[in-house]
């Protein structure tokens, strides 16, 4: 019989991105014995790719900035579907979390007076993103990694969690395997924090790393945790479109933050014609005004290239569809004609490098070609806004895998600070919960055995399918039928495709040994990917309106009825999923005033922000 080793922890953190590492640190500080599991090596999680910066209303560049303005910006960008309490916690705490990173050794870019510098990003009223050139994620993850090592973190690197383990309705640990050897591991834990990141890999064109197969959403849902608002997927407006093999790789919004502009094949800056009703009056109306804003004229308004991502992505899509795209089906993003070469190299070094190496293009001389790429999921595991607890006792979630903070659309920079604010909260709450658990944990031996057998099944199934081919099919069909623009017929067709893929995901075949076997890993990833794809499609079908990251061709406008509803994706006792609409949590009057202030003037006059 297959053997396995057992590890005991108070708190098991699944994921070593920004959220997981911050949760681990918080739990260790509370005295918990903490184990961290990660599919990759320490310091390599998807967070390492983040570029532009982390948003926090520190007011270092514009003293007028404060949490209320950040609160309003975040809700406005999120189509008002955000969990207001999470947004409040987040915007109030983000500055402290950034300063704390500095105290742990992070070295952010500086203002002339020696403080942490902040840059402009879409949807933020003031320059608000603490950054390190265009490699902020690397700085964040390395700092947390170093600090966690200092605190004596116990990391299981290159280890995949295959299933969560439950006992009498609560989570008591997880079953995983060491990717390097193929050996199985049972983690017994009083509390589990999911920090598994996003699901970009269910789409063909994505900026996400291979790890983002959406495991956490499926793992949580399979043990009965509710998901929320899974229809909201962010397509970042600027991914590389050429050459084909690099399609989707991100071009940071920092390019636009630093003054880059979008043009169509006719050389026209088309964003001026794409300012939605709700943002009317907040953006520059002429190139001349946009230019003055860039030069620091505070009476001018911001350039429309800095509208939120959903708006910009759709505008690019429209230019391409109407025949004004670039040769490879994107739009032009031009920083070359706007900034001196030295400045570009200093502020956007990895973009310079990336295009030089991968695209044979010098961005200090020529415009880039860019188009939308699947980037982020706003929806996720439903959590309590203060503790990040899910509805399943013992299970917590933080970071991209948790839903609620970003509503229908996330503002750039609002993820990295989300990770540290809610990673910390989750780690603390999980450690406190663990401390209250008495008695020993019961892990069901039969459950473990059954999961192991099921995980090994592809090795004993010579007639099964090639898992890579299956994954390709999933990604292509999700892209086509549930991508940036959606429509009922295609979504329904995708549900059928998924029903079929779901069966086939359990009938794959792999060969070779269990040690570091990518075919086997892909076979197991597929089982979780089809589950979460289904949740996305079901929620997308249910939302008959367009809002934020969810755009329906058959319902092109926002609908006031849906403006008041979150979607809860719940697993029924027979294993199927259903979508339930629930009214948004009630926002107190004084917060509503902040959220609904028409503009910054009203915000400062009426609520003193």
């Amino acid at each position, binding site marked *: 019989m297959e053997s396995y080793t057992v590890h005991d922890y108070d708190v098991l953190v699944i994921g070593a991105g920004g959220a997981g590492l911050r949760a681990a640190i918080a739990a260790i500080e509370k005295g918990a014995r903490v184990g961290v599991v990660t599919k990759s090596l320490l310091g390599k999680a998807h967070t390492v790719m983040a570029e532009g910066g982390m948003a926090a209303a520190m007011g270092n560049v514009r003293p007028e900035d404060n949490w209320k303005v950040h609160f309003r910006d975040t809700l406005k960008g999120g189509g008002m579907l955000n969990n207001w309490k999470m947004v409040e916690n987040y915007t109030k705490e983000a500055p402290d979390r950034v300063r704390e990173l500095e105290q742990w050794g992070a070295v952010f870019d500086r203002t002339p007076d020696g403080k942490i510098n902040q840059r402009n990003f879409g949807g933020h009223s003031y320059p608000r993103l603490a950054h390190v050139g265009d490699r902020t994620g690397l700085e964040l993850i390395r700092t947390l990694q170093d600090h966690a090592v200092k605190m004596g973190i116990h990391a299981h*690197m290159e280890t995949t969690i295959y299933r969560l383990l439950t006992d009498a309705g609560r989570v008591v640990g997880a079953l995983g395997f060491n990717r390097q050897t193929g050996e199985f591991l049972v983690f017994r834990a009083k509390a589990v924090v999911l920090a598994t990141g996003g699901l970009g890999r269910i789409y063909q064109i994505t900026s996400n*790393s291979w790890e983002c197969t959406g495991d956490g959403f499926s793992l949580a849902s399979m043990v009965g945790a509710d998901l929320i608002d899974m229809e909201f997927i962010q397509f970042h407006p600027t991914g590389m479109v050429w050459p084909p093999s690099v399609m989707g790789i991100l071009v940071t919004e920092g390019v636009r933050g630093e003054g880059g502009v979008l043009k169509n094949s006719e050389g026209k800056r088309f964003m001026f014609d794409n300012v939605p009703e709700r943002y009317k009056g907040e953006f520059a109306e002429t190139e001349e005004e946009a230019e003055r804003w860039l030069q620091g004229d505070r009476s001018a308004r911001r350039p429309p290239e800095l509208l939120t991502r959903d708006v910009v992505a759709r505008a690019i899509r429209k230019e391409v569809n109407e025949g004004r795209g670039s040769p490879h089906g994107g739009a032009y993003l031009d920083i070359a004609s706007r900034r001196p070469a030295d400045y570009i190299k200093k502020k956007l070094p990895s973009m310079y490098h*990336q295009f030089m190496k991968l695209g044979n293009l010098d961005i200090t001389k020529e415009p880039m070609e860019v188009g939308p790429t699947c980037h982020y999921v706003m929806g996720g595991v439903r959590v309590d806004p203060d503790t990040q607890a899910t509805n399943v006792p013992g299970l917590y979630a933080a970071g991209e895998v948790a839903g609620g903070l970003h509503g229908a659309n996330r503002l750039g920079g609002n993820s990295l600070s989300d990770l540290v604010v809610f990673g910390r909260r989750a780690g603390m709450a999980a450690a406190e919960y663990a401390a209250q658990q008495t008695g020993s944990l019961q892990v069901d031996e039969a459950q473990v055995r059954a999961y192991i057998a099921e995980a090994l099944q592809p090795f004993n199934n010579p007639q099964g399918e090639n898992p890579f081919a299956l994954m390709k099919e999933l990604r292509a069909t999700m892209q086509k039928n549930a991508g940036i623009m959606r429509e009922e017929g295609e979504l329904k067709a995708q549900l059928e495709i998924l029903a079929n893929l779901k069966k086939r995901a359990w009938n794959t075949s792999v060969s070779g*040994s269990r040690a570091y076997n990518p075919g086997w890993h892909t076979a197991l990833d597929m089982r979780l990917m089809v589950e979460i794809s289904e949740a996305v499609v079901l929620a997308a079908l249910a939302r008959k309106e367009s809002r934020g990251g969810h755009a329906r061709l058959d319902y092109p406008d926002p609908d006031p009825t849906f403006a008041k509803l979150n979607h809860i994706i719940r697993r029924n006792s027979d294993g199927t999923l259903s979508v339930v609409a629930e009214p948004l949590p009630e926002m107190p009057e004084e917060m509503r005033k902040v959220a609904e202030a028409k503009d910054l003037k009203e915000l400062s006059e009426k609520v003193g922000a």
Partner: protein
Amino acid sequence: MSTVTFKVFRGDRSGGELKDYTVEVQEGMVVLDAIHQIQAEQAPDLACRWNCKAGKCGSCGAEVNGKPTLMCMTRLDTIDTSKPVTVRPMKTFPVIRDLATDVKWNYEANKKIKPFTPAPNTDWIMYQEDVDRVQEFRKCIECFLCQNVCHVLREHDEKTGFIGPRLLVRTASLEMHPLDVENRLDMLKNEGGIGYCNITKCCTEVCPEHIHITDNAIIPLKERVVDEYYDPVLGFFRRLFGSKKRAEPSGQAADD
């Protein structure tokens, strides 16, 4: 579209061999794309490590035609594909399987370096010109290609008494942090083994982040160590080139 032959190492700790695979290549493809194509179509159990495919995570280091490089940043049109292209794992670390190596040693050796220790009661004011050079070191993506080429680790297999260029860079990022007050010179001289480095600069040449590992990190650290202890290699270089040879001077530099 053309067809290229790849000779890829297949094997594990106990040994292995190069196996031939032919791949249809398209414009703009990188080596990692070719490996993925082989995985998807011919050898589903071909092991290789990668995450970002954008040169940001430092996972995909390998030796392509003998040259240590990130597979995701090496375009096929920059190498000679008229002949078979060999892809081998990094030599300095034990092979787990195929192209994936066991780099755990780096994480262990890292623990020798004392963590960031800020001055008490600092106001956290730092100027850009003071953090510029620390930021250079902090660009490191831990690809370990420098560790892979350094002859002290590669040929002499001196993994107990020497931490290697990557970790010297990390030490430099702490030592030169404007607000750090810890002293790591004793570690550098002893467990860190900075004296083993004879400034061949092979590490600098392979660094995908273009960190001036030797000039900006190792030599200034050696100078700090020299001020406390004596280092024969640096003494030799100083006599040869004069101490001007070292990195940009800065307010924090240890001597002259």
